[in-house]
């Protein structure tokens, strides 16, 4: 590795970091390896002591723990608690860790036994209602997104290392989309949660003409009620809006208010839709 770094004349300590995953696709960790251009610089900024997906050596002497995924089985609570004990700073990495992510879609079904049976038939399998990390441990910092945006992670980690306050954008994706000079997707007939979703992704999906599904959760002061009305004036069905609102869990409480009104399909009736309040 290259020479020691300093900032404003003060030598920088390379914090020891560990990466961990609970129930997830491990894509957020992979995003870090995916940043070929700056990977080596980034690795120089920190000392990785635990990264199961990438290396054999393991250590428990980390300052910062990045935890990806949500809690979906009891043993994960114990793992998470142990990680929290070791870490000075615990970072929830990605939407699964922050809100439950796509995993929490199974919380739509009140009957967990039905869920198990649907996939494993009568084979005994253990699972539980899906929870974000913050339901069990103190989370010091959240990094939103499915997937996380690697540039954002690098900025956040750099800020952490330099001891600067980490701030998330308060404005919605819609603003970044406008700044990218995209045609409004409503005009193209595509439903979009850009107006209420927290920015920071640089309008990743909408710049590719794909409507926003709200993976980064609500912006500060997101105007949800009004968006629902606006989307209905554009002719989008309540169910279409609900599909997006409930996909990643960031809008769970608002999705709950919409769901009872959504038309029930015969299939979901046997396992009544509607998330239990946790």
């Amino acid at each position: 590795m290259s020479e020691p770094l300093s900032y404003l004349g003060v030598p920088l300590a390379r914090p020891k970091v560990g990466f961990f995953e609970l129930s997830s696709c491990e894509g957020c960790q992979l995003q870090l390896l995916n940043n070929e251009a700056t990977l080596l610089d980034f690795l120089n900024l920190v000392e990785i002591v635990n990264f199961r997906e990438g290396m054999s050596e393991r250590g428990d002497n980390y300052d910062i723990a990045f935890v990806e995924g949500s809690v979906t089985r009891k043993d994960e609570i114990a793992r998470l608690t142990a990680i929290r004990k070791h870490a000075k700073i615990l970072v929830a990495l990605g939407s699964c860790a922050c809100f439950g992510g796509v995993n929490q879609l199974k919380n739509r079904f009140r009957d967990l036994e039905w869920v198990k049976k649907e996939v494993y038939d009568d084979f005994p399998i253990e699972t539980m209602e899906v929870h974000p990390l913050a339901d069990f441990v103190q989370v010091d910092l959240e990094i939103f997104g499915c997937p996380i945006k690697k540039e954002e992670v690098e900025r956040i980690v750099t800020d952490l290392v330099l001891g600067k306050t980490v701030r998330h954008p308060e404005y919605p994706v819609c603003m970044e989309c406008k700044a990218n000079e995209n045609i409004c997707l409503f005009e193209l007939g595509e439903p979009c949660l850009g107006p209420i979703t927290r920015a920071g992704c640089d309008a990743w999906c909408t710049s590719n003409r794909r409507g926003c599904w709200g993976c980064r959760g609500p912006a500060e002061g997101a105007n949800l009620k009004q968006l629902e009305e606006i989307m209905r004036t554009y002719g989008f069905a309540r169910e279409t809006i609900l599909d997006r609102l409930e996909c990643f869990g960031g809008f769970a409480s608002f999705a709950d208010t919409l769901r009872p009104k959504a038309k029930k399909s015969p299939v979901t009736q046997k396992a009544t839709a509607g998330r239990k309040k946790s």
Partner: protein
Amino acid sequence: MVHTAATDSHLLKKDHLKGFLRKLAKEYRLVAPVRNRHGDVLFTVIDDLDAAEIELSEPPQNSLKQFFLPQQEQLSTYTVTPEGYDFHPVQATIPPTIYFGVHPCDLSAVLYMDVVFSRRQRDPFYLRRRHGSVLIGVNCNSPSPNCFCNATGSGPFLEMGSDLQLTDLGDRFLVETGRAPGQALIERWQGFFSPSADKDRAAHYQAFLEARGRFSRQVHVEQAIRQLEADTVEEKIWQELSLRCQDCGGCAYLCPTCTCFTISDQRLDAASGRRLRSWDACTFAGFTAMAGDHNPVQAKTAAIRQRFTHKLRDDVRLNGRPSCVGCGRCVSICFGGTDIVRFVERVCQGSL
């Protein structure tokens, strides 16, 4: 308003336009409204005049703002030293540019920006782009459905402010000379121009009258200005509109006269960084945020109030005219329906 063309006017045959522009393009960077492959008309820097489809009858989707005040502009770089920060201003040479085919609304907006960026403190970054630019306007014979420049006093025909001002008279343009650089262009390439006759000036006046009759919207901006000045706009109107605003900033981005910006320092590595200036908008929640997380403008209702009060009351007090130029861009971008036309209409309804 007298819209008879000045006697100091010339004729430019449409057949000669390309040739004239070709001459200009040799000495200037040329920017004009061009239809792109998706069918959109945008002010574009023209590299190949023969390949560019210049479109004068349809209003461009962007204004000239981005050319004088870019969405993001690097003001300086800095290095971090043990003593602190060293700033190094960015040197940029902006080529002399001709902006051709500028509609009266957008031209009025540039004149407004000139005032904003040079009234008290001269803004070197704006002025180095504005300096050496030549504005060739074109009057609007047929306003678009969202246009209301007749209500803001900035169109459809422009009386002053441009370097040259064109009016489409069918097979020819009537060319009025405005500021000195325009006069110089006519003299330099006088072969392209012929003197105008009385009948041409009559045709010009006729075109103006017809254009005035073609507005599909009657937006009573004057009345909204009066109510704002008298402070009689009902509270519920602010609330109603604010609730619908999604804070996307689209109106401010597209608005040719929204000039608010924010300055941020972006670290490049541990030892250096750059200082950027980016567009901002008064509707954004963080616009008035201060150190210590204090924000004097808390309610969403205040942000919307700030936007319209600034455009329609404060600028009238300061400059004698509103800074809304009636281009209608915010009407088309706002999916929530909180644009200035909606506001004016609500105010007028409220006073019924």
